[in-house]
């Protein structure tokens, strides 16, 4: 059974159709990349999946449940976590504090007015594991807003992971990064996918990253699906090439 199913999702802004009857289904453990030229509606599509706003029409199912009208926080509770194209973190808190908030919320403690020693020890341990996984341990006590861009990105992904998601949505994880940083993030995503069998959907512009990571690729253009398949199939698809090269030229 598919973990995520999108059926004919459409989103209009006034007369503009940003996402036009897009369907997609993602299997558990799959890494799906969504590619497409600028303005293809990729981020809008992501916003529909994560509940940033509802679709004008169509349905979204997450592990068999209709989540089309659910709030983002409910979807997070069901195991959906995301990052943003422009990094969204708590800039004036330290990396450790950023992760602490995420871990506490994930542990169902968000409304708790106190913390017992036992729970606190578990939370600390989890924070250290996440810091270590992201290679952030040496910088854990610096304000996250003052860290380099790549580390901010990593911190954001780690916060999403702190939620123990079943589906991780990454909106252009390598945007604005240098080669080394891109390499590190790609390795991190690969590790998450291979070692933890985490289901991941990501939007990405860097084709090296996409072809290196993805199990399947969905191509969007002008709000609609242009093609879908394995990296090899997509690389050979003439319509996709035309759309990309046409735009590029």
């Amino acid at each position, binding site marked *: 059974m598919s973990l995520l199913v999108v059926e004919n999702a459409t989103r209009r802004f006034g007369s503009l159709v940003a996402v036009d009857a897009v369907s997609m289904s993602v299997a558990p453990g799959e890494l799906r990349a969504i590619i497409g030229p600028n303005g293809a509606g990729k981020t809008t599509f992501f916003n529909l999946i994560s509940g940033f706003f509802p679709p004008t029409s169509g349905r979204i199912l997450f592990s068999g449940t209709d989540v089309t009208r659910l709030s983002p926080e409910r979807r997070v509770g069901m195991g959906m976590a995301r990052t*943003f194209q422009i990094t*969204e973190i708590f800039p004036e808190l330290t990396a450790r504090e950023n992760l602490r908030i995420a871990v*506490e*919320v994930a542990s169902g*403690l*968000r409304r*708790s007015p106190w913390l017992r020693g036992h729970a606190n020890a578990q939370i600390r341990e989890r924070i250290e594991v996440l810091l270590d996984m992201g290679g952030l341990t040496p910088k854990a006590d610096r304000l996250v807003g003052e860290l380099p861009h790549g580390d901010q990105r990593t911190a954001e992904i780690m916060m999403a992971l702190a*939620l123990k998601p079943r589906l991780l949505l990454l909106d252009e994880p390598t945007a604005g990064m240098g080669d080394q940083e891109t390499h590190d993030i790609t390795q991190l995503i690969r590790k998450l996918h291979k070692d933890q069998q985490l289901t991941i959907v990501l939007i990405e512009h860097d084709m090296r990253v996409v072809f290196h990571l993805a199990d399947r690729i969905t191509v969007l253009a002008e709000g609609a699906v242009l093609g879908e398949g394995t990296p090899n199939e997509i690389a050979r698809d003439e319509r996709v090439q035309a759309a990309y090269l046409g735009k590029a030229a």
Partner: protein
Amino acid sequence: MKRVPAVAWTGLIWLVLLTMPYWMRAVGGYTELASRVLVLGLAAMSLNFLLGFTGVLSFGHAAYFGLGAYGAAMTIKYIAPSTPLGILVGVATGTLAAMVIGALIARLRGVYFAMVTIAFGQVFYFIAFRWNSVTGGDDGVTGWKRQALDLGLAKIDLLGNDKAFYYFILACFAIAVTLMWLLLRSPFGRTLLAIRENERRARFLGVPVERHIWLSFVISCCFVSLAGTLYALLNNFTDPRALRWDQSGNFVIMAVLGGMRSFWGPLIGAAIFVVLQDYVSSHTENWMSFIGLFFVLVVLFFPRGVLGILRRKGMA
């Protein structure tokens, strides 16, 4: 410059608060002034729970302050001559109103939230002002006095002994402030910081932002109405000015003046404001201009507040 640890600052503040009635006179003040600093300091710190630690701009906190004051005054005058009961009823009234109004406004943000809180604040002002037969209208609730505190074993005279009353206020202050401090250090408190820092991220971590803003609003108003009850007890009187818009503005400027990002800042802001108002209003008729000018100067030159500046210089 060496950093002074936070514990030392906290200790110093408590030391000052505990000894204040004994040296106020020596520096030209009086015990009632010290009490007023405590009461308005509590109000400003309560507001700052929402303003500084949740990042939500309320400009109508006087309404809940005033509801607390009226609740206490009318309970003691009409129902039972008991100081604790008055406080209880006052706090319950303010909190209840905050629960209802908070539910209406938790979806709004920024300037709009501020504007709606200002407007709602006026509702209670008009009720107090217009409903003459019950609230005494413009004259307020008079003809009652705070009652002695009956502890079973001993009776504490709060009315004649102004030092005893100061310590009574300090006890209430200590309880309220400790509760707020604990809340801010809890997982719940950290979700509020998260909302202040980045609402979108908080939401996509699974925090139901509206519900937490509502909770923060209600908690903040609960403590501000406690301050309101103490204010009525301090004056043995309350009138519609306790819940008018200018009072709300005063709370905000106290918080800003002291430093919104620090826990104790608003208390320091309140102390400066209260002493200044006391001094200016006894020396000139045009004290409104001075207070107004003071607002302008604080905004233009001290937007980070006293503690914000100290912190930047590495002293706090």
